[in-house]
């Protein structure tokens, strides 16, 4: 398991999270709006997973296990959380 939900309030990322975990993580985040993400066991994560973390702005319990995540991605996510204003409702383009 690279992603798991504990007690409805912690989403754990473990080991090397592949691209597919992005969707799983998103579903967990949407289903558990208060849950915290714990990535202390996370060695590496695909960009798709990082993107979901960035969009969600959810609090992270770290530091991450992987050095790249710990040194660069964690701080970048933290900065974006401070800067991100509440986003306006997205204008969805209609296709036909």
């Amino acid at each position, binding site marked *: 398991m690279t992603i798991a939900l504990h007690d409805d309030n912690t989403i754990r990322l473990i080991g090397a999270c592949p691209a597919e975990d*992005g*969707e799983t993580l998103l579903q967990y985040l949407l289903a558990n709006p208060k849950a915290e993400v714990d990535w202390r066991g996370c060695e590496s994560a695909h960009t798709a997973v*990082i*993107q979901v973390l960035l*969009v*969600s702005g959810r609090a992270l319990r770290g530091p991450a296990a992987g050095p*790249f995540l710990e040194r660069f991605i964690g701080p*970048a996510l933290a900065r974006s959380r401070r800067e991100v204003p509440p986003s306006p409702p997205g204008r969805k*383009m209609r296709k036909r």
Partner: protein
Amino acid sequence: MNEFVEQFLLESRELVAQATDDLMALEDRPADKERLDGVFRAFHTLKGAAGIVEFAAMSRTLHAAEDILSALRASRQPISSNVLGECLACLDLTSRWLDAMQASGETPSAADRDADDMIARLVGAMTTDEDDKSPARTAAARDDWLDRLPAAASPSSGALTAIRYVPDPDAFFRGEDPLSIIASLPQLLAVELALTDQTLTPETIDTFNCSLEILALTKAPTAEVQSALRSIAERTDIRPLAPSAASPDSDDDLAQATSLLEAQIALLRVDGADGLSGRLESAGRTAANALLYLGRSGLAAAVEQAMTTSRSQRNAASLIAAIEQALTPEAEPPPAPGTAVPVASRALRVDMDRIDALVKLTGELIVVKNAIGHAAKRIAGDEDPAAIASILRDQHALFDRLANELQGAVLRIRVLPLRTVFRRFPRLVREIAGNVGKSIRLITEGEATEADATIVDALFEPLLHVLRNAVDHGIETPEQRASAGKPAMGTIVLHGRREADTVRIEIEDDGGGIDVDRVRAVAAAHGLASEQALAAMTEAEAVELIFAPGFSTAATVSDLSGRGVGMDSVRAAVERLGGTVTLRSRAGTGTTVTLSLPFSLMMTRVMTVEVAGQAFGLPLDTVLETTIVARDMIVPIGSGRAFVLRDRTIPLVDLADTLGLARDASSREAAKVVVVSAAGQIGGLEVDRLGERLDVMLKPMEGLLGCMTSVAGTTLLGDGRILVVLDVQEMFG
């Protein structure tokens, strides 16, 4: 006209309108950040759309405008009227191009010359706006992403190269991991992440789409970085950073800025009106730039605002006050009160023809209305009732026809062809197949089949999951196919068709079919069913396990369970739309997944039944048949009752009991039974009387009644009574 061009024209017009609205609003409130962001997004999307149809001149022009808007966004300066004017002119030009394309179907020939003129005007607007004095600012505008790098401001970091990398949105599909490329850069110092689309929220994001902008700083020389990133060169912007001789740390910065700000105040306090406006301008700009350099953009904006005020009042007081305010420690003013967040309404594009049809029908309805008024007058005039009755009957027939047509026309407005979602797949399938080393062609059929817009919109994700499964697991590798005597290229057929009130979409692959033993093994491993239960299942039942929640999890990227996107999510998505998913697999020859969806979410066909003197509706798609069962054929089973229909035991539910109604004793002869299918089961509902079939517009229960179970909604009957339509699924569930 090419369909892409058609869509491009539609979307571009919407975007032009949206950008114009935002620009007009900016004219009133030049510092409205929300609106500026809106304009920027619209220009950005327009540029992208132009790129898709290969309209280079338009793309170029909009790019120039986008640069200016992006600089404005970064500087947080209010938009000046000449920039605003040129942006509007740019939209006008775009509109003219769109008109020309609509007429000829081709990109206008003179576009390049117009584009050059427009770009020159845009650049001109920006430079006059910058007062020609601060070339540094224009440069900063072009490199505004550099400012967003946290460490870029302090040259002491020793950073030599800055990188901006915007991965292809389809990067994930191609199996790329953009951040891993950045992670492998030598001597990395900092990484900054941003979304290319600021409006993305967890609710709207597509996790399969890369919407990231990645900024990075490294100590490695530019040439080394360039060679490391050669594979993604066209999506990166690599800039050398000038190493600074002096390396002041941030305390020095602050001290320098403070003395700079104090000097500006001294300059402004010099008496005498001569050169006041020049001094105001220069002091204001210097102070604002110093504050920007310190990252105090809020204060910088305040200073610039004060500069404008001072200039118009010909008095330095406000500017002095603003700079002094900035000198007060930690004087960042509170954020501007939140501007009203515009709620985006859900827009639906409609063909003019369909609206015209509605207009025509409205006209005909007015004729009928007049005729009925005329008939009423004739009744008052004591005319022969039989003649008037005949007139009314005629008008009623006419009215009936028109009402039907009107209903049909309104429903057609909400209808889209499946093409809108189908056409995205051929490219995706080719890419997914390429990733797994298979060659597969996707044949789409029945793209013209229409369905409710809500349904068509929601189909993309489930269809994508099914197609991915077909590519990943359905189609065998070329070697396996060759040894099975099949052509090396696999075929997936995506087929849509309309069947009565149902839209059916089949995804058929010519792969190896589903390995039922593997399914059993995986299901056992996941504890979905006991070994005995699994052994007792028929093949069809075992295949159904693929839809069980938990069958597919991200951790088991096995041959069968796929990429963590389970078939259970497909079933859930389709059932949310009121549809069903079925799967048929033939060992060695392929798998067919069938999605059945209602044509429209609005119209429901119901059958009316009567129980204890009240009428109820049953959705006709759940009704299998009606039958009469003799009392002695109904046998009690446990706490319930059942009867046998064609050798099949069917549980029987008394609708009156279920609804808590008292049944009168007269109905004790033979039971009238409606056989319904709900949640995959068959059941019988005993009723007093069987009624008629009706097409109804179902209104869902609202307010206090909203929480009632077993009720799908209500509709009005011809005589004004309310018909309650029951939700059979919930009654048996």
